[in-house]
């Protein structure tokens, strides 16, 4: 297959992710020793993703759907580089901004002002870049009055607003979203969707996980359906979503 790799933003090729089952997790030496002596130190393995392959062209927007525990978030973590594939490869072209959980990089004791710089640094941006975009972030999050308050006193909606504002101030080539818009009020959700569609227009590639099929249909043009770690279907968003809904009994 002769294809120009530069055409693609994300290429996932036969990726398999293996976990040791959580019930078998041994995190203290005594248990380890006992199991070792009894020769029970066998890890029950569990494949969270099996041989997943898909290619996302630049500028496309893919929704990833499936029931709880089917491996959607695992797939996103794999693409972000948090997890390494056990087998197979994941190739990315371009800068990635993960919106996996908004404000994951916040420190509760620091003020919002300090957290903006900290979270920016987590995403790999230096102080000068963040200073230049500081006002833009604060205005988008509508939190100007609360800048010197420690984040631990923020409501979850306020923290999510700030997190979204920081993560999207950069214009990444690839944006990865996992159920992030569930928090925040209606007006803010609208605002976020507008910003996402703006970014899409500028050519950002989007990978989107949501349980709301309506929002996947609205935001995405392609979809990937995974079920218990296996790929069920991929292609046009409407085709895949309809097949999914049919299976779910709607």
């Amino acid at each position, binding site marked *: 297959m002769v294809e120009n790799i530069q055409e693609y933003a994300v290429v996932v090729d036969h990726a398999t992710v293996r976990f040791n089952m959580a019930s078998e997790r041994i*995190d203290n030496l005594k248990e380890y020793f006992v199991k070792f002596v009894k020769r029970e130190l066998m890890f029950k393995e569990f494949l969270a993703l099996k041989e997943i392959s898909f290619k996302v062209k630049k500028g496309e927007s893919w929704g990833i759907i499936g029931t709880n525990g089917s491996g959607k978030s695992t797939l996103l973590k794999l693409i972000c580089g*948090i997890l390494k594939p056990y087998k197979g490869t994941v190739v990315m072209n371009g800068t990635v901004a993960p919106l996996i959980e908004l404000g994951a990089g916040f420190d509760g004791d620091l003020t919002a002002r300090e957290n903006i710089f900290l979270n920016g640094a987590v995403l790999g941006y230096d102080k000068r870049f963040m200073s230049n975009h500081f006002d833009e972030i604060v205005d988008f999050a509508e939190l100007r009055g609360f800048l010197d308050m420690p984040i631990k006193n923020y409501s979850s909606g306020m923290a999510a607003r700030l997190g979204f504002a920081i993560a999207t101030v950069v214009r990444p080539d690839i944006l990865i979203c996992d159920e992030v818009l569930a928090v925040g009020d209606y007006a803010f959700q609208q605002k976020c969707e507008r910003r996402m569609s703006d970014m899409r227009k500028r050519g950002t590639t989007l990978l989107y996980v949501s349980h709301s099929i309506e929002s996947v249909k609205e935001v995405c043009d392609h979809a990937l359906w995974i079920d218990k770690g296996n790929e069920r279907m991929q292609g046009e968003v409407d085709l895949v979503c309809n097949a999914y809904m049919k299976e779910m009994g709607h």
Partner: protein
Amino acid sequence: MKTTIKRLQTFAHYKPLFMQLVAKDIKLKYRRSFLGYIWSILNPLMIMGIMVIVFSSMFRWDIVNYPVYLIIGQTIFSFVSESTNQAMWSITGNAALLKKTYVPKYIFPLSKITSSFVNTLFALGAMLIVFIACKVKFNIYMLFLPVILLEVYVFCSGLGLLLAQGTVFFRDIQYIYGAFITAWTYLTPIFYPIQQLPFELMWMIKHFNPLYSYITQFRTIVLDGAFPDMRLIVYGVVVAGLSLAIGLFVFLKKQDKFILYI
């Protein structure tokens, strides 16, 4: 080689994060305390004062300038114990962040060691006060003191990386290390002269306790006004380098598995 270059590039990319994490620790340490950073100086002075009272009335060691002798050992030892203890928790403590976004993981233990190091630099203020109060003569060899601090810093970085990765897999390392630190306190000549010990023990400490090398280098310069024994310096540098090499090697080898255990 290629991966090394890539790693260095990644580190350069995440340098702002490293700086932010260090600044965060320093800022938060004394937030909402009335005296703030002054505690970095006051606290070692208070501990030293108590130890001087306790040890100079309980034991009669013939140490010239005992407060100076004490504060040097105490400052270096408390840096080692504080920084490694914090580094030990740095991966498990940032689990939420590591599960959600990609950042190079070694940044966390190294930032903890560095913020502790900066606190130690503040504590040098306390040392300076003691030096002046005890009329220590300043000498040219003191220019070598930063090198000694650097040796300790590199040594702690390696140890911190090792502990941080170990704690991810076995949480009981914290208890073992707690006991180890206690033993280490007594097996380091912080408040007693090493000549007090039986010969075998003295030999063991001189050969297997790197802190002996660092503290003695420091004391030779300040108390004797002489350049430390070359063998001590070489030993200190080699142990520091080894510690960092082993720590980094094990950490990088294990880091991809962290996500499954945090």
